[in-house]
C-alpha cells in the first residue's frame, strides 16, 4: 500500500472487476492523438499486410467490406487511466486477414495514415484478439476516432489500437513504435499495468 492521503476517499470506481488496476470508468469517449486527424476517403483507403518475403496482401475498402464482418462487444482501456466498458464495434477479424499470410515473424508494426506507428507481437493480434473496425456503437467510425477504420486490440492499452490504420508490417524483432519510443511500454497489458518503459 502506498502513502495514505488522509481525507482522500475517492469515488470507488475500482470495485468493478472489469476495471484493470489504476483505471477508472468513463461514459464519454475521449480523443487522444499526437497530432491533427488525417482525412482518408474510403475510396483511397486500403489495408495491407507485408511479409518478410516481400509479399504484400492488400484490400481496398470494397474488398475489405466483402470479408466476413463481425460484431465485437468489448471494454477498452487507455493508458491515461480511463476505461470505457461495454463498447460495441464492427469489423473484420485479424484471423480472416491473415488466412493467406505465410510468415515466421513474431512481431508486427502497425502503420497509420498520418505517420503513426505502434508495435504489436503477432500472437496478440491473432486468435480472436484483434480486428480492423469501421463501426462504433452502430455508427460509422468518426474521423476523430480513427475513421474510416482503425485497429482494435482491446486486451492491450488503447494506444495499440492504431487509428487511421493503413497496414501491418511483419518484423522478426520487436521494434518500438511511436509512443513506445517516447517512454511507453513495449507491450502494454493493462492488467499488468504495463504503462511506461
Amino acid at each position, binding site marked *: 500500500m502506498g502513502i*495514505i*492521503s488522509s481525507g482522500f476517499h475517492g469515488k*470507488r470506481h475500482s470495485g468493478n472487476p472489469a476495471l484493470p488496476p489504476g483505471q477508472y470508468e*468513463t461514459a*464519454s*469517449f475521449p480523443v487522444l492523438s499526437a*497530432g491533427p486527424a488525417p482525412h482518408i476517403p474510403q475510396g483511397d483507403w486500403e489495408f495491407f499486410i507485408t511479409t518478410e518475403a516481400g509479399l504484400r496482401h492488400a484490400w481496398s475498402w470494397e474488398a475489405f467490406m466483402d470479408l466476413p464482418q463481425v460484431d465485437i462487444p468489448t471494454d477498452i482501456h487507455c493508458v*491515461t487511466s480511463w476505461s470505457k466498458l461495454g463498447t460495441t464495434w464492427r469489423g473484420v477479424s485479424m484471423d480472416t486477414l491473415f488466412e493467406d499470410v505465410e510468415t515466421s515473424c513474431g512481431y508486427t508494426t502497425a502503420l497509420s495514415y498520418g505517420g503513426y506507428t505502434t508495435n504489436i507481437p503477432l500472437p496478440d493480434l491473432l486468435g480472436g484478439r484483434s480486428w480492423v473496425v469501421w463501426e462504433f456503437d452502430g455508427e460509422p467510425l468518426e474521423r476523430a476516432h480513427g475513421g474510416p477504420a482503425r485497429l482494435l486490440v482491446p486486451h492491450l492499452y488503447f494506444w495499440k489500437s492504431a487509428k487511421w490504420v493503413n497496414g501491418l508490417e511483419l518484423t522478426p524483432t520487436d521494434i518500438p513504435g511511436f509512443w513506445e519510443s517516447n517512454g511507453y511500454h513495449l507491450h502494454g497489458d493493462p492488467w499488468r499495468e504495463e504503462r511506461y518503459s
Partner: protein
Amino acid sequence: MTGLWRVAEVVSGVPESETSRTIGLRVDGLMGNLAGQHIDIRLTADDGYSAVRSYSVATAGTDELLEITVDELPDGEVSPYLVRDVAIGDQLEIRGPVGGWFVWRPTDTNPVQLIAGGSGIVPLMSMIRAHEASENPSQFRLLYSLKSPKAGFYREELLTLSRESPKLTVDYVYTREAPPGWSATPQRLTAEVLLASILPADPAPDIFICGQTVFVETVAEWLVQAGYPAASIKTERFGGTGGTL
C-alpha cells in the same frame, strides 16, 4: 525509472485561479524534467483504495523541484483533493516525469507557436519558462484562449514576460468575458482570429496545442486547412476525460 512510484513532498501551494492551485513538489533524486512532460500522481485512502491521474508539469528545472497546476474538475475524484485539501508537508506518490513527444528542448531551433485553451496552458508554460531560462534565441509566440480574465493562470508572470522578453509574444483571446477596456468583444475563437494571432505558416513554426479535446481538434483542423504542415503540429488533450465544449 519512470515506472517506479516515488515519494514527493508538497513544499508549496498557491491559488492560481478561482478553481485551481499550483503545487510545488520535492522529489528526492529527481534530476529535473523536460518542458512539456507530465507526472502521474497516486492518492491512497486509508482503506487502501487508490486513484491515479496525470498532470502536466508547469516548470522545467534540473533539480529535485517541480510544480504542477491542478484545475478542479466538477465531479472530479483527485483534483478536488489536490486543489483544496493537500497541505504543505504532506507526501504524495508520483511516477515520472514521462513523455518525449509533447516536449520542447532548448536545442530546438525552430520558431515555436504555442496555443493554449484554458488549463492547457500548463505544459506550454513549462516550455516558455525553459525557453526564457535558456540562451535559445528562437521566437516564441503564445495564443491563450480563456473564458474570462479570472480563469487565467500565471497572469503576472506572463504580463511581465510579454513586456520584457524580447523573444516571447503573448496574445490573449477571451471567449465569454474580457478585461475592462479590452479592444475585442468576447466571442468563441474563430479561424480568422486564430490565424491573425499566430506565427505565419512560412517558415513553418513548431506548433504545440493543448486544451480540451474539441478546442484542440478544431484548432488543429484550422491550421492544417490554412497550410501549416500537419507534421509540425503536436497536440495534447486536457480536461478530465471528455472535454465537450
